[in-house]
């Protein structure tokens, strides 16, 4: 990836800000998501809640499905690859995907190495639970970061933990003396130049979205108030009673995340939310995949 291409990829993420990216499993859902106001869709065969229920190895989606979804909508289409599976990423690049999500939701293909994202022209988004993880992914070439909230649970607790931690770590880094940055780089296991960037700007060098466990407009607004620049919603929409209505309510909640009156109206009469499972009830913590 040339420097110019990387810049363009970061800029596409900037265009997605203040928006909602929705998981969809077919062209029909993609159209519902687009009509509801999604700023992008994530094409996958099974949504995280079903991946979790089914168990077994979970992989990149069938290119046929991805192409159908690309045909169905004009907004950007993203798709997931397994952590470290650079051939799945090569395939998605051949499909001209708009964004690759190197995702812990799928079964990791490599227990140690993430994809060297510099080898690609398409942009990558990666999950992070803390600042060190975020900056390591950025050094590998990620042009967008998202929290690694526990997917498929409808439980926001992990995403909240991650965004709070990342924001705290950024605030600390910003407050450090210049001569303390070298030690900080060592602690975070990241290159000095990224530590310096965060120290200087008080933010990540790329856009940071919330992901994992968002099920209601209030969840989405919570993540925005905590500092997320946009929201991914996975199982929360198409596992709920009235997907189109809920999707649209979450879109508007992200725009007016600071207005409790509007949030109250949006939260009204949405039908059943996804049932959800609590963090302590689940066997596989997907967020622990890939550090």
């Amino acid at each position, binding site marked *: 990836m040339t420097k110019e291409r990387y810049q363009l990829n970061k800029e596409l993420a900037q265009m997605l800000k203040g928006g909602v990216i929705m998981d969809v499993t077919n062209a029909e859902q993609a159209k519902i998501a687009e009509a509801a106001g999604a700023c992008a869709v994530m094409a996958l065969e099974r949504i995280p809640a079903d991946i979790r229920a089914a168990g077994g190895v979970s992989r990149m989606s069938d290119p046929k499905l991805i192409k159908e979804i690309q045909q169905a909508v004009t907004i950007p289409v993203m798709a997931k690859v397994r952590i470290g599976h650079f051939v799945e990423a090569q395939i998605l690049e051949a499909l001209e995907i708009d964004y690759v999500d190197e995702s812990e939701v799928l079964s990791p293909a490599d227990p140690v190495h993430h994809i060297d994202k510099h080898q690609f022209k398409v942009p990558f988004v990666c999950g992070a639970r803390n600042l060190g993880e975020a900056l390591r992914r950025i050094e590998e070439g990620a042009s967008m970061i998202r929290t690694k909230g526990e997917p498929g649970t409808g439980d926001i607790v992990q995403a909240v933990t991650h965004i709070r931690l990342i924001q705290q770590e950024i605030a600390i880094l910003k407050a450090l003396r210049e001569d303390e940055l070298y030690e900080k780089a060592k602690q975070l296991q990241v290159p000095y130049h990224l530590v310096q960037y965060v120290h200087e700007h008080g933010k990540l060098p790329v856009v940071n979205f919330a992901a994992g466990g968002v099920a209601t407009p209030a969840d989405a607004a919570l993540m925005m108030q905590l500092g997320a620049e946009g929201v991914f919603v996975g199982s929360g929409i198409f596992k709920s009673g009235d997907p189109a209505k809920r999707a*649209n309510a979450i879109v508007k909640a992200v725009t007016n995340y600071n207005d409790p009156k509007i949030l109250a109206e949006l939260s009204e009469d949405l039908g059943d939310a996804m049932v959800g499972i609590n963090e302590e009830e689940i066997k596989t913590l997907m967020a622990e995949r890939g550090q």
Partner: protein
Amino acid sequence: MTIGILAVQGAFLEHAKMLSKLGVDSFEIRKKADIQRPMDGLILPGGESTSMYRILRDLDLVDDIKRLIASGLPVFGTCAGLLLLAKEVDNYKSDFLQTMDIKAVKNAYGRQLGSFRANGSFNGEDNIELVFIRAPYIASVKDGVEVLSVHDDKIVAARQDNQLVTAFHPELSDSTFIHSYFIDMCQEALS
């Protein structure tokens, strides 16, 4: 002078930063009460046009914006903002604001792999950085529309009276040239 920036989705902060470089105040428009505040110009930023328009419709902002444009308020649409203003979108059934006599093509350069940077001219000024992100272009314009920039034989910036559009993103470049052009439009409208 105060500029309202539509902030329902997309890269609205980038525009606010450009304006503050020029010493111009701005505020965000996210709901009905915001659009009723006095303003000397309106920016429709980059982002996803379908997403923005759905929110505009639901928050009951469409008629207000149309009325402001009809009353002569200077408006500046970049990328998605251009699509919102175009009377016609070639490959998409647009029911957007449709206030400007141009025919646009959505995602005209293809998907993200088709995004690019180039050097071009704007209103006779050379060496302007043009940043195209999944960008549209203008296929044709009607009488009364002034073409301000052409890149690779495609119209990428135009003006019709109080409406200015660019298919590229001046808010992502280091130069404030095009924002100054818009601020001049706002100044003229004031005098």
